[in-house]
């Protein structure tokens, strides 16, 4: 069989040989062994359905052989395909061995033919697809699209809880500030004491404690409250020291003080 193949290949026309040489030079241009097989199959000038897979296998093996002779590096998958095609060839040529398992040579050949036809089909379709009118080349979209103006309306929202928490935050903020007295509305006992010490000398008679309130502290209720408290505390201090006497006629009646008689 091997001789026969050699014989056949020797009988190839010069042009076929040249084509085969060209294939070899171009080996990098192939998209894998299936692509190469498809290209080789074209030399058979038949419908892919009626292709002689045996002949194709021989063409391929001859190709690989030549490449080897020319010391061309072939990618591993080309060599895997060559080994497989050699196996296929033997299956196709030898009478089927009933003891052998697996698909028959014809089944394998039929599938290879199918693969080639399918690949060719895809190539033709790709060509038809690319030959179609294309957007931006043969037909066109709107050149001046009026973009949908996105009116982004932001609605802000808050819940009653947010509102209350916000308010609580502000109103309680004061509670956390460092403790300081608001002096302007507060009269301390020391202040009252100093003041009363100066004034007490004139109080020979019972005098209403409230009359000792400093000017400007009588009207504002907060100031008044503070001044009254401070004066009262101061007068208690003075009484304790024996400088004055204190009396009150009844519950809630005016508190009166006078200087202790010498």
């Amino acid at each position, binding site marked *: 069989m091997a001789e026969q193949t050699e014989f056949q290949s020797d009988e190839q026309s010069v042009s076929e040989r040249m084509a085969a040489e060209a294939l070899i030079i171009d080996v990098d241009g192939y998209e894998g062994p299936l692509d190469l097989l498809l290209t080789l199959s074209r030399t058979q000038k038949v419908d892919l359905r009626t292709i002689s897979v045996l002949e194709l296998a021989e063409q391929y093996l001859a190709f690989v052989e030549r490449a080897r002779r020319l010391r061309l590096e072939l990618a591993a998958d080309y060599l895997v395909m060559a080994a497989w095609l050699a196996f296929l060839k033997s299956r196709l040529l030898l009478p089927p061995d009933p003891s052998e398992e697996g698909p028959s040579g014809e089944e394998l050949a039929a599938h290879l033919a199918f693969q080639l036809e399918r690949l060719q089909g895809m190539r033709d379709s790709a060509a038809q697809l690319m030959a179609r009118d294309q957007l931006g080349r043969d037909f066109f979209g709107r050149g001046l699209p009026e973009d949908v103006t996105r009116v982004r309306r932001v609605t*802000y*929202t808050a819940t009653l809880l947010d509102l209350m*928490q916000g308010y609580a935050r502000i109103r*309680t903020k004061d509670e956390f500030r460092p403790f300081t007295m608001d002096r302007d509305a507060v009269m301390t006992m020391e202040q009252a004491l100093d003041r009363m010490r100066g004034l007490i000398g004139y109080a020979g008679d019972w005098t209403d404690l409230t009359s000792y309130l400093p000017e400007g502290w009588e009207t504002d209720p907060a100031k008044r409250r503070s001044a009254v408290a401070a004066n009262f505390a101061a007068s208690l201090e003075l009484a304790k020291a024996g400088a004055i006497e204190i009396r009150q006629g009844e519950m809630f009646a005016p508190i009166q003080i006078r200087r202790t008689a010498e």
Partner: protein
Amino acid sequence: MSDAEQVHGQEESLFEAPPMGEQERMVEAILFASAEPVTVTELEARMPHGADAREALVYLRKRYEGRGVQVVKVGDAWAIRTAPDLGYLMQKETVETRKLSRAAIETLAIIAYHQPVTRAEIEEIRGVSVSRGTVDQLIEMEWIRFGRRRMTPGRPVTFVVTQTFLDHFGLESARDLPGLKELRSAGLLESRPPPGLMPGPDSEDEDEASEGQSELFED
């Protein structure tokens, strides 16, 4: 026929203007696909020799009368544009809901609890100045509006909350806002202020809102 004549004749047939209907189609396609308005000169430069873009435009313009788009003149050029009455279709409103900023919430809360309240008062209560943007935002949202001017020197404007505000928060009136005591019992206030240090509402609030409000904060 001489060769020269033949060539001439071929030339003429090649360059004969297409029928007006065809020219109208061409103008339509060019105007549609162009990124900018196209002048008559430009149209004719792109159309076959002898074409009359001006006439084609008259037909085309008529064809689009009353349609969703129109052929309009822009300077000395032409374009296809959306019919003005359908402009609203070109707007896609995306509503984005955002949480009100902390500053806005606090300002709003002060206005709600203290209304009518001046800007100076808001600032005094918050302890920081109130940005114009915050107030504007609340006004724009129609949650606050100007109240009557305060009868004090400078006659400052006051702010009050609106019906929209009440509707949004499901309140019948601003008086329905819970007081601090309620906030506290609802667990919204963590700390208990030391007794006696509770600052009262601003004493200069002589308006009706000031009463009642003070109650809110009495403990």
